[in-house]
């Protein structure tokens, strides 16, 4: 490590560091400010949002939107649904993806190429909304939360990436384990998975974010409104507010208030946002590839 530090302490190194930090700070602000605006708007009054186009601190601080959200059981329940789907869905997806990727990473497996070709084909070609709906219905999954999980349980894209990662793991370790009398499943469980923490962390994040953000499957497969995930409600509020005024239905109550919309965005986004920092420590613990070499 001392060598690396020395590296950073040269003059060009320092100039680079300063520029780099400045650049990243600016970038962080640019990506963060709109979210701050959403937060600020969720605490502002309706009139202020209409009057000021962009602001970071509301003039009058109002909790009205949040009071409204938590005055009914709807949002809390929908967050519960989202959490359930996200947790269970991520576990199912990780299990399926990992177990399928591992055998496919073995180049001498008979039938491997056929399977990989079929997987790639299914990434590009799809039967579409209607046939998939019919399959889901035939499985009796309509109106079940499993319909939000099983139809998308494996993302072929992620599967291929995980497979590539497994392919790059040092073979010596697996061999050593085999000589010790482990079965392939034992190798997978005791050697491969522990070595794959960064990958597991990455794809936990990817799948979790996917499940959390998905509203479209709920739209198609869930009729019972008590099982709507929070993203569907958010979508609902955003789109109703965004329709052209001329189309707005006379029978409707007032369009949702802007601050309510923004508050729902905050409520629907924060849980998944805080997930990343929590996972980050697993990214940092790299695989100690060096240990094999000795």
């Amino acid at each position, binding site marked *: 490590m001392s060598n690396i530090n020395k590296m950073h302490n040269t003059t060009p190194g320092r100039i680079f560091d300063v520029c*780099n930090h400045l650049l*990243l700070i600016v970038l962080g602000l640019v990506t963060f400010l709109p979210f701050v605006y959403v937060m600020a708007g969720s605490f502002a009054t309706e009139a202020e949002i209409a009057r000021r*186009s962009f602001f970071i601190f509301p003039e009058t601080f109002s909790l009205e939107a949040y009071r409204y959200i938590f005055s009914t059981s709807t949002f809390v329940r929908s967050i519960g649904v989202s959490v359930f789907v996200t947790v269970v869905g991520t576990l199912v997806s990780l299990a399926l993806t990992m177990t399928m990727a591992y055998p496919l990473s073995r180049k001498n497996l008979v039938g*491997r190429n056929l399977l990989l070709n079929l997987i790639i084909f299914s990434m590009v070609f799809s039967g579409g909304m209607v046939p998939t709906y019919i*399959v889901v219905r035939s499985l009796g999954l309509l109106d079940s939360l499993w319909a939000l999980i099983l139809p998308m349980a494996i993302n072929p894209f992620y599967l291929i990436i995980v497979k590539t990662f497994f392919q790059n793991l040092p073979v010596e370790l697996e061999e050593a384990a085999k000589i010790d009398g482990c079965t392939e499943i034992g190798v997978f469980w005791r050697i491969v998975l522990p070595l794959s923490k960064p990958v597991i962390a990455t794809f936990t994040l990817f799948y979790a974010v996917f499940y959390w953000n998905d509203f479209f499957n709920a739209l198609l497969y869930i009729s019972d409104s008590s099982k709507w995930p929070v993203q569907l409600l958010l979508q609902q509020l955003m789109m109703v507010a965004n329709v052209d005024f001329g189309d707005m239905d006379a029978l409707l109550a007032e369009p949702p208030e802007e601050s309510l919309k923004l508050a729902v*965005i905050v409520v629907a986004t924060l849980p998944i946002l805080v997930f990343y920092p929590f996972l980050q420590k697993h990214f940092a613990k790299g695989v100690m*590839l060096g240990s094999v070499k000795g």
Partner: protein
Amino acid sequence: MANIEFEQELTFPVEKKKLTFKQKLRRDKWLYLLLIPGIIYFALFKYLPMWGILMAFQDYSPFLGFWASDWVGFTHFQNFFSNPDFFRLLRNTLILAVYDIIFFFPVPIILSLLINEVRMALFKRTVQTLVYIPHFMSWVIIASISYVFLTTSGGIINDIIAHFTGETVSFLSHPDWFRPMIIGQVIWKEVGWGTVIFLAALANVSSEQYEAAIVDGAGRFRRVWHVTLPALRSTIVILLILRLGNFLDQGFQQIYLMTNSLNREVADVFDTYVYFMGITQGAFSYSTAVGLFKAVVGIILIYGANWFAKKMGQEGLF
């Protein structure tokens, strides 16, 4: 990953002697067991609905269903290719797709290299988290914020420009600004998200490799070039190849929200067209045909790129 090279050469001692087909199956029986759930998934949810593709050759009426609908052969394809708008749509789609790969694809890689150079763990994590936030903002919000910033009457950015030059720039309505604006929005929204996978790959680079490079007297830039980038190479190649499979896909919602009467000539792409044909107009078969065309282009590009990658000595998809 320095190990890639030798690892591929290395083979199992048992494989030295030729195994029969049956022996191979028996040898890998546990592996096949692991494969089964995944195979069932693909069969059920990906291949069972695949008959939907045939709708492209039908005059599919949702109410009559698949079996009662008429077969029309390649009619929809003919209509699509002979549509007066076809070449405009193709051109707009291709240009945006190429812009996306040239201007968007490298940005997360560069950003992860920059983040990787940061030593303060807290700063690093904070930046990572901040840049990834926009991924969670919906396009409706982004379109709305873009309007607030870019409009010529009172938009913050245009006010600044007008202050210095005395003129305003029609970012939102001028056709020349449409593509830069779309790519800019995509970069803003997805760059942080894109770094996640590269940063995970960088986590695998051991500090020993850096140490070794430093001992060899490598400068900072050379270290990035010789150690960090190669560690990302296989990820980059795979992501690029996979990206080509969706080459002709653009985010429908984003394009739709940013399109207006003054920039439509450059804004219309296959995805917006398919949306209006398929969902609004209910032309199932026609939109399936367009989707099929896009998929064929995608699969050709994937295999082409994979072949090329292998030719260049990269690992490719399989």
